[in-house]
């Protein structure tokens, strides 16, 4: 996904004053970033708003970009920070409410369980109800095909922690969807 040498060349151009070159970075990463944020928020408008703010902040702080990691990783970190703050302020409680609507209190029949297990909507609803760290680990690993190492770098946590989060997230999803661990 990321083209590190080409990104560095573009960033060097921007730093020399050719600011219109930033469009190349926006064109290259906006789809992946918006999809990543949509996976997190399940809200297209919010995903685009956060992505736009992330691009603006990345541009404003481009002088601080140290090239210790890829530009895309840095951009995703900025976007995740914005998303975390917004989700913690507003969306998290709504997600839990939506999840409670999706999953009734009484245990479903086996047929209902099978239907719901096949329902992608139900899975997405269950993922939305996970704590932020679990939700992000699930979406990065299963939906964006990131490795443990990449997730650890993005979330700035040890790989062991990422494995633990993924395991617990799956347990919680299984419990939410099937009513069992």
């Amino acid at each position, binding site marked *: 996904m990321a083209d590190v040498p080409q990104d560095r060349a573009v960033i060097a151009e921007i730093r020399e004053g050719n600011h219109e070159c930033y469009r190349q970075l*926006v064109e290259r990463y906006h789809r992946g970033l918006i999809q990543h944020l949509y996976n997190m928020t399940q809200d297209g408008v919010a995903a*685009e708003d956060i992505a736009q703010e992330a691009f*603006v902040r990345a*541009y404003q702080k481009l002088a601080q970009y140290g090239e210790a990691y890829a530009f895309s990783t840095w951009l995703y970190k900025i976007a995740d920070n914005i998303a975390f703050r917004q989700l913690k302020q507003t969306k998290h409680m709504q997600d839990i409410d939506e999840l409670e609507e999706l999953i009734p209190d009484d245990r479903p029949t086996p047929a209902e369980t099978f239907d719901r297990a096949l329902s992608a909507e139900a*899975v*997405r609803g269950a*993922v939305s109800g996970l704590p932020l760290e679990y939700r992000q680990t699930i979406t990065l690993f299963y939906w964006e095909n990131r490795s443990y190492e990449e997730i650890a770098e993005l979330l700035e946590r040890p790989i062991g922690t990422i494995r633990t989060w993924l395991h617990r997230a*799956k347990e919680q999803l299984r419990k939410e969807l099937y009513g069992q661990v």
Partner: protein
Amino acid sequence: MDKFEEQIKAAQKAYEPKDTFIDATMQHIAAHHPRRRWSAKVWAPALAGVAVVALVLVALPISSRTIHSSNSNSTTTTASQTQPSTSTAQGSSNTTSHPSAGGTDNASLENDLGGVQHSMSQENNDQSSANSALNDQQNEIATPTS
């Protein structure tokens, strides 16, 4: 990957961003950094103006200071002329600093001389104007009145 994990993986919903996203983002960036667009057009003339004002502010005090220093040099010259024997009596080591002081004394003396000449020419002008006025009066007296 077991069946449950496959179900999770298959649950992803693709989202297609709006076509206007890139243009809107670039406009947003430009709006957040207006100074990047007109910095050269605005700051260069502004800096030139500030430089001119600074030059004027620096040049005026320097010119007035030179006038003051020339005046003070003339006064110190007269003061030093009153006691020339004390400096020479203090020893030969003091004489090394005298050439520059002598130079300024000469300059101040020249200034004083110029001032005296100026005042003399002013007096001459006054005298000539007084003479012309006197001539006019004499002409009026000499002119017969009807």
